[in-house]
Every structure is written in C-alpha cells, then in structure tokens.
C-alpha cells in the first residue's frame, strides 16, 4: 500500500523556511560578512544580549537622564520652558548650574508631601483590598477541577480585552447619583436618597481594586496551584485541623505569590492617574494628578520632573524588596 503523502501546509512552510535559512547561511556572502563581523567582535550571541540592553537604554535610561536633567534646571519662559543645565561661557569655561530649588520646593509645599502620602495610603489600602478579594479567588481557581480552572482563569483575564479607560468610564455609569446602582437600590425601596459614591475615595478604591485585581490573582494562583496538596494531608494526619493547616501551611507557602501580587498592584497604583481623576473627588489628591498639573497646567517642567524623580525613588525601594524576595525564592527552589 502506498503511503499517503499528506503533508500539512504548516509543515511544508516550516520545511521551506528551514531550507531557505540553510541556503542563506551557507551562501558565500553570508559567510563573508559573518567573518567580517566576527573579526570586529560582533557575534550572534552578543547581538542577542545587546538587544534588550539597547531597548532599556533607549526607552528607560535616556528618558530618565533627560528628566533628571530637567529636574535640576530652573524654570524660564522660553521654548523649552527651562534653563539649560550646562552653559558654555566662552573663554574655556563650562558652567553647570544645579538648581536644587525644585526638590526643596517639594518639601516646602505641603501639597506634595500630602499627595505622596495620600498616594502611598491609597495604594497600600487598595493592595490590601486586592489581596483580601484576590486570595479567595486565586485559592478557588487553584483548587477547582482542571476544566473549570481554565474557564475561571479566562474570566479573570477577560477584562483585559477591553480598553482600561473604557472600563473605568463604565464605573462612572454604575456609581453616579442617577447611575445603575443607585437606581436599582431606589427602585427596590432600600434607599430613598441616592448615595453619593462617585468622586469619593470609595470610588477610587473600587476603581483601583477592580482594575488591578488580575495582577493580584494571577501570581497568587501560580503559587497556590503548584503547591503540593499532600502537605495538607500530612498536616491533617499530624492532627492539624483544616483552618489551622491553612495558616500554618498554605499561607506561608503562598507568601512569595502574595509579595509578587502586592508589588504588581502597589507600584502602578501609587502613580495611578486615570482612576482618581475620573472617579475621585477633589480631595483624593494623588501624585499622578499633581504631576499632570505641574506639567500641563502650570507648564513647570522642572518641578514636574522633580516630582517624577521623587516618585521613582519612592517606588524603587519596594521594587528592590520584590527583587530580593524573588531572588531568594528562586534560589530556594533550585
């Protein structure tokens, strides 16, 4: 019997591609240029390693240096709206003027410290709320049957398919005085005056917890799912009741996930701008909004840059903590 010579399109394509690559890499021009590059220290491996470095230099280090530079400049009405940091005075003299006034201004004006503190508090409480809501969710998903697990995970990730801005806007429709929630409650006769929810801290918490919940649930799920369930059987066997076993076994083993989730929620929540400006009131002043005001309303680029640098420093600490714990966990599981 003749063998059916059916080859799928994908297989044929990949075969053709492999042949093409084979042909190119063995052609004399390729080999010559490879030899030429290698003589100058350029290798494929070096290129692969250099690429991410180039990326972060281009999109992180250079912008950061620019912002840092602006933060040490003085304001002036010009284009761009700040004085140059380095001036060539002629006669072989180079003047570098470091203007520290922007940073001392941040400390002097209570607005900034208040905004920073408020951001930290709101981000901290939101993180805690996310953990409170996210942990049972992650636990439930991790302990569900494999078929259900995929469905539930899908439902956690599903909101990402809609624009973030759109989802926050939708909450306005739900929370406003004649919004869905108030209308339903009034129609049911539970309340007769609409509850003011929009433009309060409550709305900000709702927005942040809602938006960042998946970032808490997913790392928690990852740690809870890989947990060895025989550990719980062992605990029970040794006379430990299920609730106690949770606090002695499950919780300590899920701490790396809790830290990862908390960092993923806390760090972006500190600098959150969209949610407080759409859902929050005038009182819920967060550092993101201050930054926006300085930059676009006051056109004070140096102070705005100083605000940004200070925020970055504020966040670097938790990021480093996160890195430390992640490194420790990796070495523990080697």
């Amino acid at each position, binding site marked *: 019997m003749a063998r059916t010579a059916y080859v799928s399109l994908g297989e044929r394509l990949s075969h053709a591609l492999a042949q093409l690559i084979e042909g190119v890499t063995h052609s004399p021009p390729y080999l010559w240029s490879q030899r030429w590059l290698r003589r100058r220290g350029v290798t494929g491996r070096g290129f692969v390693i250099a690429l991410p470095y180039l990326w972060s230099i281009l999109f992180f280090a250079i912008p950061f240096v620019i912002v840092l530079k602006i933060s040490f400049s003085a304001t002036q009405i010009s284009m761009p709206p700040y004085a140059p940091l380095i001036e060539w005075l002629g006669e072989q003299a180079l003047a570098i003027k470091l203007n520290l006034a922007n940073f001392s201004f941040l400390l002097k004006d209570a607005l900034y410290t208040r905004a920073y503190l408020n951001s930290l508090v709101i981000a901290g409480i939101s993180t805690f709320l996310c953990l409170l809501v996210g942990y049972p969710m992650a636990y439930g998903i991790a302990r569900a049957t494999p078929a259900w697990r995929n469905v539930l995970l899908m439902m956690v990730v599903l909101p990402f398919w809609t624009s973030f801005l759109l989802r926050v806007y939708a909450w306005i429709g739900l929370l406003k005085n004649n919004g869905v929630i108030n209308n339903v409650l009034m129609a049911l006769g539970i309340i007769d005056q609409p509850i003011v929810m929009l433009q309060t801290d409550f709305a900000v918490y709702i927005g942040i917890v809602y938006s960042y919940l998946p970032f808490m649930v997913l790392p928690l799920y990852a740690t809870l799912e890989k947990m*060895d369930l*025989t*550990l719980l059987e*062992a605990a*029970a*066997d*040794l*006379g430990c009741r299920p609730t106690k076993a949770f606090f002695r076994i499950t919780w*300590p*083993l899920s701490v790396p996930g809790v830290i990862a989730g908390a960092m993923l929620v806390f760090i972006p929540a500190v600098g959150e701008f969209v949610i407080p400006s759409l859902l929050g009131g005038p009182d819920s002043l967060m550092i993101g909004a201050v930054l926006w005001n300085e930059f676009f309303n006051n056109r004070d680029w140096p102070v705005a840059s100083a605000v940004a640098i200070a925020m970055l420093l504020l966040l670097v600490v938790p990021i480093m903590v996160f890195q430390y714990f992640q490194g420790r966990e990796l070495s523990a599981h080697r």
Partner: protein
Amino acid sequence: MATAPRSETKIEPWNDPHATPYVRIERMSKKFGDFVAVHDVSLKIYQKEIFCLLGGSGCGKTTLLRMLAGFEVPTSGTVFIDGEDMAGIPPYERPANMMFQSYALFPHMTVEKNVSFGLEQEGLPKADIRKRVGDMLEIVKMTPYARRKPHQLSGGQRQRVALARSLVKRPKLLLLDEPLGALDKKLREHTQFELVNIQEQLGVTFVVVTHDQEEAMTLASRIGVMNHGEIVQVGTPSDIYEYPNSRFVADFIGSVNMFEGRLIEDEPDHVRIESEELGGTFFVDHGVSSAPGAIVWVALRPEKIMLSREAPPGRENQTRATVKEIAYMGDLSIYIAQLPGGKMVRVTQPNTVRHPEDRITWDEQVYLHWHSSSGVVVTQ
C-alpha cells in the same frame, strides 16, 4: 489447596482465634466513578505486626491505605481501629499516622519544626515537645541536621525525617506508603533493617504499602497480595513464597516456572499430574482439593530445580533439556533451558565452587530434576 506447616514457637496472633485484631477492615470497597479501586476487602491486622500490602501499580493498595488514614471515604464497608468504628472520623482525629511516599515534608520548616508539628497540635508543653523531638531525631540519627530545611537534605535524610515526624506522636498504628521507594538499593536495604529495629523498639503496628516484593519479604510479618482491588492471598512471607494459592501470586512473588497439567491421581498425601509441557508427570507430595481430570498448574521455583548430566533415578519429576542461555550473577548462575516440547525453563544454581573445571555450558544436553516437595499445585 496447599497450606504451610506451622512452627509452634513463634507468636502468631493471626492463628489464635481469641486474639483481637488491632485493625479490622470489613468488606471495604472504593469506587472512583466506574473504576473499582478496592473491591470487598476484609482484613485483620494485629498489634505489633508489620503488615505489607503488596501489589503492582493500580492494584488499589494505596487507596486502601488512604482509607485507613481517612483521606478517602470508602464507598462501602467499614474499618475499625482499636475496636472503634472510623466512619466519619476525619484524619486529624484518627489514632494513626502516615508516612507519605513523597515524604510531604513542610518545605518552609526546619527538620526540627517538621518533627515538632504534630506534637504542637496536641498542645503539649514546650519542654516536653523539645525533649521528644530531640529523642526522636536521635533515633533516626538526624540530630546534626535539626536546623536544616528539607531542600538541604538528601533523599535518605528526608526519608528519616518523614519517619521521625510520623513516629514522634507515638501512634499505635503507622501507615507507610512506599516508604523506601525513593532510595537507592544500598540505602534501601539498610533502611529496611532500621525500620524493623525501630518498630521493635517502639512496638508500633506498621501497615506498609509496597510494590517491591523484596521489600515486603524483608519487612513483613505478613503480606497481603493485592490484584485488581482484591486481596488474593494473606500469609507470612514464606507462606506466600512457598505456598502461593494462585498463578498470580506465584508469578508476582519471585520468579517461577509454571507448567499446565491434568490431575491424574489425587490422594491426601500426594498427587500426580500429567503435563504435556513437561513431557512427563509431576509427583507432588501434598494433597489438592480438586477432582481428577481437572486442569491445574504446577509452580516450580528456579532454585528448586537441579541440573545434572547424569540421568536421575526414577521417571517422574524430571526431564531432558538443552541449555540455551547462562547468566552469571556472581552468587548464583541462571540457566535458561529448553525442554523437548519447546518450553523454556529457568533454573538457578548457587556458585559454590570458584572455578569449576567442568561447568555446564551452552547447548549442552542436561537433565532437570526436582524433589517431590518442590512443586506447588495451584488450581487457579
């Protein structure tokens, strides 16, 4: 059916009709959906016994053990531990402790904390806990490693910690799931004897699940052989080895040559079986409860067959054969011999002489013969 002769000196509570069993399993079954994992098992296990549940993978032995520990709820039937019905009693209230196949050590706790975990649940005073944990670590020789975390230990050390953790609560009943499975051969043999020592020292009843017949032979006071969720034979290691009650058991424990035959003479003190495979008749010196003419099997262990160049006296319990393969194992040699009818027979001979001048070699014509007490007749 064949039965083993009993020695009178040993304490054998299972032969004493007045002895009360410590664990009594009554008609226990477990189904997972349509799959029957354990089918109608009844067992009596006595105090200070090491009872081995032996069987291949998927035979239901682990499920049976997990039902004793309380991790699985039986579909039907009951288990009594120390006379108490265990139905509805959760694992954390049972008087049994388990040593898990994976050891299930808590990865975030030190060796010391792992061992003290069970005692902390009892709410004992701190000083007592420290003393008992210290003593236990001494017994399993893990004192120098008390402050290490499980991932800093070797397989054998983890195994000892797991054992210490399950024993420190002084359970009356210890359940062990493949306790030596993860150890290499040398360490396994060493630990087997250690386990027996600890068991004798502490007087605990052990129920051990294993797929390793050698392990069961060394450890057990009695073995329960399981197949397809059922217990097919219960007996002492020598009972099981010398007097298997079925082809399955004979084949599962050790290696065996199985000859199909027809019962031609059945007396209380002997039977004769005509076997086409053998090309002759077997004379076996024990009675069989089967009708003449029935199809039966004779199980013959390789080490009980003798190999010689000269024709043995008599006409029964012997055959001609050609040596086809020889495997030198050091302490003994394995010969694979072909009978005139084509059947391959495995024979082992101890290598008692270092350099035999005239050893039997490949393609030699030899006689195989055996004693009338060597073969065992099984009817199923």
